[in-house]
């Protein structure tokens, strides 16, 4: 039996006499939230009021010493944990105990262990088991904020989002909490305010607030909205889907062999992918350079519905036509990382754009000397790592644009079918022009 909780519920405890302006107030220890020492007196918190006890601080300590739930939490402070609703970890040494009516009390590291034991938890920093999204929310300082951020007055915004000195707004803090607040509203049953819109629509919602704070000069905060949103999605704190954003990505999940993903780096190759999808019923996607997190989320959600069980296991294959250079490899790695974020793990990966799939003539005349290529994104370190992994072409720091191979599309088709052969569930040709049917519906 939790005696402390029982006495708290029944409002029974040892008698405590409190001094009022014109006499005494009689209460009991279960009604007391805490008491602190003040020149030997005990200042008691009851509800939102404070009274001096008729007993000294030392006598009050003796009075509660055997009562369950009463703990020494900081110097000259005793707290009745039956009144405590939550614990905030300020750091690993300092904690704040918050009562049901919002009063705050310190809990110092010295007294931590007894409180931890009382609650019978592994740590007071967070609940265990601990979810990664929860970890990231704490790391990004995402919190529940009652008032709609878009309608906060400037002093309120400073109070909530400024630095410790209080003179500068931390824009990133404001933006992540704005995004989280919007998704909280949606989760509570409100319609998405930007249904069918895009990330820019979210930017337009918060832009007037930043304007009121005189923060629109200099930094491009649309980028902050976009990058912080992607980060929150990556950490599974929220999803683009919850905002019902419009996603225009070039992808389509196959009907017959959806577990085979045919990936192209370039938009211009998408029509070719569609022809292959007609032929083999595979899933197709063009990353259009670096794949966007939003495209990956929408793609994965649709993919998981069509491939209900495969995606959980090691039975997905990504056959790809990327440039044979560090960029192509980076894009592919990012795409696979993004799939992992949305639950599609350990796919098998087959590259078609490899030196052995080009003719000698193509390699001799169409190669790119990567050392001479003026590319700020790919420094020597990345190039050297890529060389270590691939050996370039015959040991030279050469790459191949996949467009060279794509000049001979029947060859690419043949390479694709050969690579996919052992993966097909239904052998091609399948008799439907899937992408045309989709267009007809739209």
């Amino acid at each position: 039996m939790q005696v402390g909780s029982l006495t708290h519920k029944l409002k029974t405890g040892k008698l405590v006499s409190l001094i009022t302006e014109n006499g005494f107030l009689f209460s009991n220890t279960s009604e007391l939230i805490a008491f602190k020492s003040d020149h030997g007196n005990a200042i008691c918190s009851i509800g939102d009021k404070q009274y001096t006890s008729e007993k000294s601080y030392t006598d009050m300590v003796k009075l509660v010493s055997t009562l369950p739930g009463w703990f020494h939490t900081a110097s000259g402070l005793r707290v009745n944990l039956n009144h405590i609703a939550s614990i905030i970890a300020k750091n690993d040494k300092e904690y704040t105990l918050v009562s049901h009516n919002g009063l705050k009390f310190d809990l110092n590291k010295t007294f931590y262990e007894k409180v931890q034991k009382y609650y019978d938890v592994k740590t007071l920093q967070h609940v265990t088991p601990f979810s990664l999204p929860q970890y990231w929310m704490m790391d990004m300082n995402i919190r529940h904020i009652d008032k709609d951020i878009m309608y906060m007055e400037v002093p309120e915004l400073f109070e909530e989002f400024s630095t410790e000195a209080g003179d500068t707004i931390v824009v990133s803090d404001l933006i992540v909490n704005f995004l989280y607040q919007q998704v909280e509203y949606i989760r509570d049953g409100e319609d998405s305010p930007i249904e069918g819109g895009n990330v820019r629509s979210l930017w337009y919602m918060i832009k007037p607030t930043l304007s009121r704070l005189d923060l629109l000069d200099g930094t491009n905060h649309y980028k902050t909205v976009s990058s912080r949103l992607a980060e929150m999605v990556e950490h599974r704190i929220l999803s683009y889907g919850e905002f019902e954003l419009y996603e225009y990505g070039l992808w389509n999940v196959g009907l017959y062999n959806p577990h085979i993903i045919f990936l192209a780096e370039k938009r211009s190759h998408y029509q070719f992918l569609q022809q292959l999808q007609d032929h083999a019923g595979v899933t197709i996607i063009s990353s259009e350079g670096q794949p966007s997190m939003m495209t990956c989320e929408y793609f994965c959600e649709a993919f998981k519905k069509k491939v209900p069980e495969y995606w959980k296991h090691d039975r997905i294959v990504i056959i790809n036509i990327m440039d044979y250079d560090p960029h192509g490899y980076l894009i592919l790695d990012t795409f696979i990382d993004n799939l992992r974020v949305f639950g599609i793990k350990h796919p098998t990966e087959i590259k078609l754009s490899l030196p052995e799939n080009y003719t000698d003539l193509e390699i001799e005349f169409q190669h790119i000397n990567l050392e001479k290529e003026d590319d700020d994104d790919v420094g020597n370190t990345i190039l050297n790592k890529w060389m270590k992994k691939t050996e370039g072409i015959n040991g030279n720091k050469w790459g191949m644009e996949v467009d060279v191979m794509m000049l001979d599309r029947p060859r690419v088709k043949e390479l694709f079918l050969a690579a996919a052969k052992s993966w097909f569930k239904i052998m091609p040709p399948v008799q439907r022009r899937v992408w045309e049917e989709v267009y007809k519906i739209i």
Partner: protein
Amino acid sequence: MPRKKDENLELLLSLLMRIVSPLKSIPVQTAEAMYFIRPENIAFITIEDTRLVFYDLDGNKWTRFDTLTGMEEKLKKDPRFFHSHKSYCINLYAVKSLYREDDKRKSWKISFHGELQEEAIVSTGNLQAFKKLMELD
């Protein structure tokens, strides 16, 4: 015939049990803090979007990263909790009504005392056990 002392104690204990759970408070996580909710204040527990969700009698909703089976294991010493459906664990002492929206539906709904508007479900398979615990048999 007068009650025996042991019987009286047993009765007293079961009555006290209705007021306060024998279990410690359950920690739940929010973005900024660990909250502690008393088991007797929980109306029901369910799963939403892979998270364990607690609805309390004041109408609050709390989440925790855990499984329903794991939580039910932690709650098994408290007789108020009942596995009413594969996705629901309810507080029997907080149940206000049991009803079926229409004859076509197989599952029954449960409403709770307090401020809570949300409802839980009892599956057909668990209905008899539920009725027995609610002394409907």
